[in-house]
């Protein structure tokens, strides 16, 4: 993944005469869609899922949440439980996912006064298998001085391994002092096509260099082929749109099925985490 990033960014930076500025644009047509944002994992005791409605792109203000939907979780096609509504569009269920099982959700929307055409509609997710994930064997850092290519600071490196057999995909989330970046250009995913069965040593997970004393927690998660593709599509579009080599934009392929427009993803992942303090 960094391969393509390096190639595209490097090619694009050849001519330093480019500039950027904001402009005003109108949205000519817009149709609200339901957003499903949820995951089941083997790490948390409480699993959560969020439901909301999309907004016109340039509109400011709070997102529109969906309350009182019925959200059921299935494990290998058997009903496990129904999520309880908390607040602000968030639903939770006390359950911990198990490796090797397939999970999906079924959501029945409530009456929505502002979007009656969405009321009572059903959304299902395609089953996702909760695959195991290899451990982070080491977390390290490397301090780099200011240079043409690197900013000064601490760079985070991890060691891990990929089991033999293709189809193991990874995502890393890096919490810096408890905060995970919400920039889609900072999505860190990898498939094992090129590294199948190998030790992975010194993989750089830094998007912005860290400061001394930063508390870092790295979450290494297993992701399915389809979820890898979903995240990779978000990442590549966010990354390349500022370069010479942008592609026609499109909506990443969701695993949600409904007869109404719906976006988002419901995935199943195993986690392993490790932590380090920069400079110590």
């Amino acid at each position, binding site marked *: *993944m960094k391969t393509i990033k390096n190639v595209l960014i490097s090619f694009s930076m050849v001519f330093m005469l480019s500039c950027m500025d904001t402009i005003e644009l109108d949205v000519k047509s817009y149709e609200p*869609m339901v957003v499903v944002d949820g995951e089941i994992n083997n790490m948390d005791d409480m699993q959560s899922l969020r439901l909301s409605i999309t907004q016109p792109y340039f509109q400011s203000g709070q997102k529109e949440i969906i309350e009182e939907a019925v959200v059921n979780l299935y494990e290998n096609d058997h009903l496990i439980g129904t999520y309880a509504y908390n607040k602000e569009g968030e639903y939770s269920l006390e359950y911990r996912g198990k490796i090797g099982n397939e999970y999906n959700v079924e959501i029945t929307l409530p009456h929505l006064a502002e979007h009656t055409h969405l009321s009572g509609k059903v959304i299902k997710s395609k089953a996702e298998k909760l695959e195991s994930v290899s451990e982070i064997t080491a977390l390290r850092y490397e301090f780099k001085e200011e240079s*043409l290519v690197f900013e000064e600071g601490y760079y985070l490196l991890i060691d891990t391994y990929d089991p033999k057999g293709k189809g193991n995909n990874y995502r890393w989330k890096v919490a810096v002092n408890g905060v995970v970046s919400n920039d889609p250009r900072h999505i860190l995913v990898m498939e094992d096509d090129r590294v199948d069965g*190998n030790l*992975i040593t010194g993989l750089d997970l830094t998007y912005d260099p860290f400061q001394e004393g930063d508390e870092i927690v790295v979450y290494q998660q297993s992701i399915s082929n389809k979820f890898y593709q979903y995240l990779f599509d978000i990442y590549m579009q966010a990354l390349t749109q500022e370069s010479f080599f*942008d592609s026609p934009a*499109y909506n990443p392929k969701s695993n949600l099925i409904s007869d109404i427009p719906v976006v988002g993803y419901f995935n199943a992942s195993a986690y392993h985490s490790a932590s380090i303090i920069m400079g110590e």
Partner: protein
Amino acid sequence: MRKTTLIILLLFLSFGLLEAQQEKMTLSGYVRDASTGEELIGATVLIKGSSEGAITNLYGFYSISLNPGHQTVSVSYLGFESGSFDIDLQADLNFSIELMPANLSLELVEVSAIANDEKILEIGSGIERVSMDQMRKMPKLLGEVDLIRNIQLLPGISTVGEGTSGFNVRGGGADENLILLDEATVFNAAHVMGFFSVFNSDAIKDVIIYKGGLPAQYGGRLSSVLDVRQLEGNSKKIQIKGGIGLLSSRLTVEGPIQKDKTSFLLAGRRSYMDVFTRLSGDEELKNNSLYFYDFNAKVNHKFSDKDRVFLSYYSGNDVMKLGDLFSSSWGNNTMTFRWNHVFNPRLFTNITVTNSNYFYHIIGSHGPDAWDWKSSILNQTFKADAAYFVNPTRTIDFGLQSNMQDYVPGTILPTSEESAVNSIEMAKEHAIESGAYVSWNERINEQWKFELGLRYADFRRLGGTQYIYQDGVMDRDAIIDSVSFARHQTMASYNGLEPRFNLSFTPNKSTAIKASFHRANQFVHLISNTNSPSPIDVWKPSNAYLKPAQVDQVSLGLVRGIKNNNFELVVEGYYKDYRRVLDFKDGARLTFNETLETEVLEGIGRAYGLEASVEKKEGRLTGRISYTLSRSERKVAGINQGEWYRANFDKPHDLSIYGLYQLNKKWDFSANFVMASGRPFTQPIGKYEWDGMVLPVMGERNAHRIPTYHRLDVSANLNPEGKRGSWSFGLYNVYARRNAYSIFFRQQEASPQTEAVRLSILGSVIPSVTYNFKF
């Protein structure tokens, strides 16, 4: 009644006998530049007092059949003084002509009635010839005379944006243009990602672009042929010329090895950004590199007026290095051997053998994903062409060619012990593309002419692995089997007839109405889902699943010379009907994918438009105004709900204005103004929050358009009298227009609010100074 009929029959017979007894003689030869000996392509040769005439072919040769007796031959070529010669034709005559370059006289060059009527004389439409002299005087980016940038000022030719490699002709993709350098194929004609082309103007003699009515001798691409011919080398005297600019410098040495028999040309150009970095005191900066170079070489020998051989070579490369982190290099090498042989004054032949190699090499040398990636395309062609001048009204062109293609899509190797990357070698691909053609050019009478051609194209994909998909579902997960083919076994083959037709009606010497039709197949595809081609894009030959694309193009146009052809008005409309064009699934994975057919979608396309231009050719002020109104659309199942959508390079409006003013012998000034519709893009219509990120909901593909592009460039050229050097001063983008290359969308920093951002590539005025010398 019977007596009348008999008399009429006798009259016809006697007329026929008279015709048979009046045997035609052939006048043939070459038209050359008197100062350098270079053959002039497209020079006009006319016989005064008759409608007989010819245009010199791609090798500067002409042939006309005439009645014996006294004839006056008038020869003209833009930028040269016209010549008029009296001859007494009693037998076939080899008559080669030399024309002097026009001097910089303050008086208007006398406009000959026969001057500049090439477009009226030739049968085909959609043909553009580029004047190298004019190109050198036009405003330049960073002082670089650039062919690809200049042809975009012609009607029907555009680009998706500043600094993009490739160009689009009549709504066709960048891969639909056959680019030839001395008949060798060039796959990527761009330096520095497309800011400049690989063509060193000091080494170029002639450039012809066929936008429609493709002659039968050309095949393999759908939209156009850009035929670039290098200079042969001055056969009269040694000449050294060059230039020093802000970005690059160039040097050309040419001259006779044996006067009027053997000559050579060596031309080099190199940029020098890396020279400055190496001079830096900063150790890290020294370790970076960015440059490009071109090297052209040619030698030719004339055994006699009947036999001539040429050997030409080109090598070019772009190199970029960022310390120890990353390096890349891509380029082209081409070699051409050619033999012209004149069997007799009516039969001209040419044998060409070419070798061209396009390659790139990228190294990422940091950490566990360190790798070394190489890819290349090797193309070897044999061509045999002949032109038979049957009689004064008929010429038959025929020939055949065969092209062997080797594609090495890529090899990735780990570069260090810490690299976790496994070696990957993509399977090499081989193909043979062949063609045979015949073209019948007929002048029916003084007003009607036609060119009827037929090309047979044959393509064979050789060797490799073919995957079998369950129930024909094109998905990697649906592979159920594979079949291996040995190196010389045919995996897939395609062939077909490609009719070519051009018709010209000239009611008078200043007017021509033309119609044309061509069908073309394209057997190799540029696999790229970016809006602009990149150096790492892959070319892929057709296989059992990736079928050849095909186009039918019709056009109808008018050419009108005004005021003794000093002004030329051209209006032409065209329509292109595409079949089996390729587009890609959303999120298509195109690099290192052995099952590319699973990422590709096939559909149809259409492109249509109207081109209009007015050109002033003589006088102190010359120039052209061109306007194109056009549309280019695609329809592909799986994209945009199967509805028609705008192609990435659709540009409804395209206006170019160019002017050159010759103030006096010392100074000339030129200006370009271009204005064009922005390219289409896909805009988000909604947004949502997912996993803490604000993400867009994208609307209909290419339903929006980036803001209109417009730009003014000016230049001034100083030619001091009696000096060997000249200066060229320029301003590119005079009013610093921030033309959008693209529009992208993002969340504001530390806020959930989203915004649209305009990315401009060259958003400021860019000055240039170049010193040119010649001695």
